[in-house]
Every structure is written in structure tokens, then in C-alpha cells.
């Protein structure tokens, strides 16, 4: 039975990946910085995977972990997420999102050099791109500390592949969403608000720029692409995206009309949230992944939005049942079985 190590297993992607690898017969070991952290996303598989506490800022601990579990595959998903507080902690963002990749690859080179490794890179590396859509060869122009740190991780992955002959891949992931997305992300804000408003719990949704466009896919599909990369004869880098751009307005329209509402009656473009766009139009060209990995996203935009709204409606019902009529669930996360 192959063993996979997932860093950041309690995140959105980690939880989908853990589920998927379990279904493929893997023994799954996942890391978390702190066991007392919210493990909501893992509740349904908690007994089937091993979750270990570790500090990815310490290479000695990482080496011990590799020595102990002797993994066949390593998925590096741990990162400070691309949300607002990036600018308030640029040093620790760099330490975790950039330097941790160096530590992990260096440790792999020493302890388990045959491991197949994949780094979760990000479309944020393109920042303000010179071409659209972007492919594996598009130059980077990162516009925020997250994108800069991810670019460092991407190049580090390539350097260790070339220099140490490690089987190291970089997956350039475009936005990927799901019912397990954190509440601070715009897609989840919308799906939750559509659910809450449709059930009479809230009255309006304040958002930033409605015309901002993104390439949005389903996280469950994206983790499968990462797995496929590690099953190839040679390591390489791949853009993972849908190739379609939709605006925040499209997302609102789809989500609210699904619960028979008109988003125009509830969504307010908040002048205070109108920070200037940090990035240009990020749309990925996934043709290399189509061709070489045989990968294709299964969940399209409409199904993704509906899946997220369904889950948030269900969550409101659950919480009503649990807590009488007061829905105080700021910090909770919906957990659903992978629908695919």
C-alpha cells in the first residue's frame, strides 16, 4: 500500500486529496501546524488517516517525519492562504509559503530521494501577466507577497528537479473552490449569503469589485490533477485551470437565481472594499494537462456554484436544528462528501 504525505491536510485541498487518495488505497499521513486547529473538513475521514502535528519551519522535524513514514508521494499544500492579511505578515508568509518548500525538498533529497513530490503553485505568480490565457511558459509578474512566495516555491521545485534529480512537479493551480472553501473567499461569501438570504437569515451582501473575473474550478478536480502528475514517467509542471473566466457578478447571478432570487436586490458593491485590482486577468490554458495527464475538470462553473449553494443551504438547516433558531456559525465549515 503506497503512503502519501500531505502538508496542510486540514485545508480545503488537503481534505479532498486525502479522500481521493484513500479511495485509491493509499495510506494517508497529513500534517497540521496545530492539532487543536479546526479539523472540521476532516471529521468524516478522521479515523482513516493519520494527522500529525509538525512545524514546517523546522527542517529537522520535517526530516524526522519523512524518516518515520517513508512516503512514496509528498503533496505540499501547506501555505498561508491568499487572503487579506498577506500584507500584514509578509515575513511569515515568505517563511511558510517560500522557504518551507526549500526545507521540504532539501529534506526529501537527504532522506527519501525517490519520493514523487508536487508543489501547489498558484496562478497568483502571473500577477499582471503579459499574455492571456497563461501557460506553463508565461513569465511571472507577481503582484503581492503570496504570488512572490509561490514563485519562489515554483522555481525551487524546478531547481531541485534539475539539480538533485528529484521527481518534483509544480502544479500551477488557478482558483479552485468548493463547499469547503474558507468563508473569507469571495465565492464562499456569495454561496453562503445566497443560502442565508433565501432562508431569511440575512438581508444583503457587500462585496468588492463585481466585474473582477477569475478562472474558477472545483477543488476536488484539481487535487486529482496533482495525483496524476505523480503517476507520470517524468516530472513536469502543469497549469491546472478551466480556461474559462467568469466575473464575481456571474457568480452572484448564478448563486442567487438558483435560490430563485435576483442578486441585484441583495448584492451591494461596497465602495470601501474596492481596492484596486492587484492582478490582471488570470485565465489558465490547461491544454498541456489535458494532453499529457488526460485530465479534464468534471465540474463546470454552473455546477460548482450550485454545489456550493446547496451545501450552504444544508449547513443553515443543520445549524438551525442544532442551535434552535440562532445561526451563529461564523467559524464553521461545511463538510460534504465529494460528489464526484
Amino acid at each position: 500500500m503506497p503512503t502519501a504525505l500531505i502538508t496542510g491536510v486540514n485545508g480545503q485541498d488537503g481534505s479532498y486529496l486525502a479522500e481521493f487518495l484513500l479511495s485509491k488505497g493509499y495510506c494517508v499521513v497529513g500534517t497540521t501546524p496545530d492539532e487543536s486547529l479546526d479539523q472540521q473538513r476532516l471529521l468524516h475521514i478522521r479515523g482513516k488517516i493519520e494527522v500529525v502535528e509538525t512545524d514546517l519551519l523546522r527542517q529537522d522535524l520535517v526530516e524526522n517525519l519523512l524518516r518515520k513514514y517513508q512516503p512514496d508521494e509528498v503533496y505540499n499544500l501547506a501555505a498561508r492562504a491568499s487572503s487579506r492579511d498577506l500584507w500584514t505578515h509578509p515575513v511569515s508568509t515568505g517563511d511558510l509559503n517560500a522557504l518551507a518548500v526549500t526545507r521540504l525538498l532539501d529534506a526529501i533529497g537527504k532522506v527519501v530521494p525517490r519520493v514523487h513530490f508536487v508543489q501547489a503553485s498558484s496562478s497568483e505568480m502571473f500577477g499582471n501577466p503579459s499574455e492571456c490565457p497563461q501557460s506553463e511558459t508565461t513569465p511571472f509578474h507577481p503582484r503581492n507577497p503570496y504570488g512572490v512566495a509561490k514563485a519562489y516555491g515554483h522555481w525551487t521545485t524546478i531547481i531541485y528537479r534539475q539539480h538533485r534529480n528529484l521527481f518534483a512537479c509544480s502544479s500551477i493551480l488557478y482558483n479552485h473552490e468548493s463547499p469547503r472553501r474558507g468563508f473569507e473567499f469571495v465565492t464562499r461569501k456569495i454561496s453562503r449569503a445566497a443560502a442565508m438570504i433565501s432562508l431569511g437569515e440575512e438581508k444583503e451582501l457587500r462585496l468588492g469589485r463585481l466585474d473582477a473575473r477569475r478562472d474558477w474550478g472545483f477543488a476536488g478536480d484539481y487535487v486529482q490533477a496533482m495525483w496524476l502528475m505523480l503517476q507520470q514517467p517524468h516530472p513536469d509542471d502543469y497549469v491546472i485551470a478551466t480556461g474559462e473566466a467568469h466575473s464575481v457578478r456571474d457568480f452572484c447571478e448564478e448563486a442567487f437565481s438558483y435560490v430563485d432570487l435576483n442578486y441585484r436586490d441583495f448584492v451591494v458593491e461596497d465602495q470601501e472594499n474596492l481596492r484596486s485590482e492587484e492582478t490582471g486577468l488570470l485565465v489558465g490554458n490547461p491544454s498541456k494537462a489535458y494532453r499529457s495527464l488526460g485530465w479534464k475538470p468534471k465540474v463546470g462553473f454552473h455546477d460548482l456554484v450550485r454545489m456550493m449553494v446547496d451545501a450552504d443551504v444544508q449547513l443553515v438547516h443543520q445549524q438551525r436544528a442544532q442551535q434552535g433558531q440562532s445561526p451563529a456559525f461564523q467559524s464553521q465549515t461545511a463538510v460534504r462528501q465529494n460528489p464526484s
Partner: protein
Amino acid sequence: MKKALITGITGQDGSYLAELLLSKGYEVHGIKRRSSSFNTSRIDNILPDWHEREARLLLHFADLSDATSLLRLLYRIQPDEVYHLGAQSHVKVSFELPEYTGDVTALGTIRLLEAIREIGFKTRFYQASSSEMFGTTPEHPQCETTPFRPSSPYACAKAYAHWMTINFRESYGLFACNGILFNHESPRRGETFVSRKITRGVARIRAGLQDKLYMGNLDAKRDWGYTPEYVDAMWRMLQLDSPDDFVVATGETHSVREFLESAFDHVGLDWQKFVEIDPRYFRPTEVRFLQGDARKAERVLGWRPQVKFHHLVKLMVDADIKLLEDQLSGHLVRHAGAHD
């Protein structure tokens, strides 16, 4: 009187820059690391005068891996200009010490930028970027818009610092410039860098102290300039009306082999009789061809290099011959490397 802070003042560039700024009437502050061996040899010749010059050159203990030390220093000095030259600057060593290189060279830069943010962004910031960031790019010559393809942990860290500098400029309006400096040499170049290794070897072979010089890849091509001219470009950048990034280079490219030829020629020896190839000196992923296009620096900064390749080689060989003679005759007890 303007105040400048130089990180890496004990290095090659820092020492020349300190001299330049002193000659322009600046009060110069430098950061030095605590070390149990002497590390100020390059500035010893300007240090002893500091009583007479009313303490216009002051060294402080601080460390790029210690954010608090940087912040304390910036508060105390309130510099008008910060020249950030400090780094783990050796490419090959960065493969042995990738985490340390990332911590000092990449994260050290954000620690410094954060400290500048803390004191209110009144200072102008110069970041020492490097042509190594271009790495394996197929484009040449390389200019400010050439995409990066870093191929060493050092280059990755420098690219990270470069982009963070741009992020701080664009997001906070910090007056910050990146100088993308191509190789720049001088009699004060560290003895482990290829140019100095050659000129020092030539001096020792000529004196009969050594009969072989072991080298790595002779085909690597570099754009080699003279450091005192390059630090002048740094200063010019911070005197502009608005900040920008500049390639600083000679525009000529020469191989390591040509450097050997020219250096041995200068003392009337045939390099092929003394040079042997040692594969241990090969870099894991070798940057093949660097040639800078510095037309923007010429246009905007009015900067133009005067010392070209053969002149540079000659003056470095002469300086090493002189240094060796001084050492052998007892004129120099400690190896200073500062008397050119």
C-alpha cells in the same frame, strides 16, 4: 547632511559605496554581523579616519535574520537612503545552504522593508538585484523586461527580493529601486569568486608559490564590469525623481576562458600550462550566457561604464601582484585586500 545606511558594507560593493558616499559628504552607517573572525578588511582603510572625519562612518551590529535589530537601527539612524547589499551572495554555496540563503537574502529583504514601513517610508531604498535572476533564459541580451528563470537557490532568493521591492513600491509608494547588476569585479572581490580566484592564482603562480589553478566550467559567459562604477549607478538611482529598475552592465560578454587567457597573458604566461579542470567546481545548474542591455541606465541615469574587460582583468592582476608582494615583504601582516 544626508544619512545613508548600507547593509553588506563589509563586502566588495559596500566598501566602494561607502567611499563614494563619504566623498559626497554623506554620513554613512553600515551593518556588520558579529563574527569571531575579522570581517571588516575591505573598509579598514577608511575606518581609522573616523575620528578626524567627525565619525562620518559608523558601523553597527545587526543581522538580516533578526528583524528587531534592523528596526532598532532604522529608528535610531532615520536614514535618507538605504542601500541593501547584504546577502549570502555565493551561488555555489547557496546549493549547500539553501535555507540560510533564503532566510538572509529573501526574507532579510522583507524584514528590512518592513522596518522601513514601520518608520514611515521616508527613506529611499536600493535593492541589489542580480543578473543571476535571468538564469537559463533563452533571451539575450537581458534587459529590465526579460523574464527571470532563476537556476540556483541564490537566484531564487534574489528574484523574491526583487519582486517584493516592486510590491512595496507599487502598494505603498515606497521610493524603491532595483539595480539588476551583472557581474562586477574588483581587487576587493571575494577570493572564492571566479575572477578573483584567477587573478590571485596568476599572481601566486608568477611568484612561484603555486603551479596549478583548478577551474570549473570555462565556457560560462558573463558580462563583467568594474565595481566602483557600478556603485555609482546605485547612488544615481536614488537621486531620481521617481523610482525605477535598471540593468547595470557593460553590454559585453566574455567567457571564463577569455578571462584566464587575458590574466595569464598580462604576466606573459600561457594559461593552458597551469589550468586544470576539476568537475567539483561545476555548478549543478550552470547559467550559460549573461549579457546585459544597460541602455535604460545610460538614458535615464546618464551612466556609462568606462572600464572594459581587458582593462579590468589587468587592474585586478596588478592589484593581486602588489598585494602578494606586500604580504611577502611583510608590508601587510593581515590580508587586507583593500589596497588597490
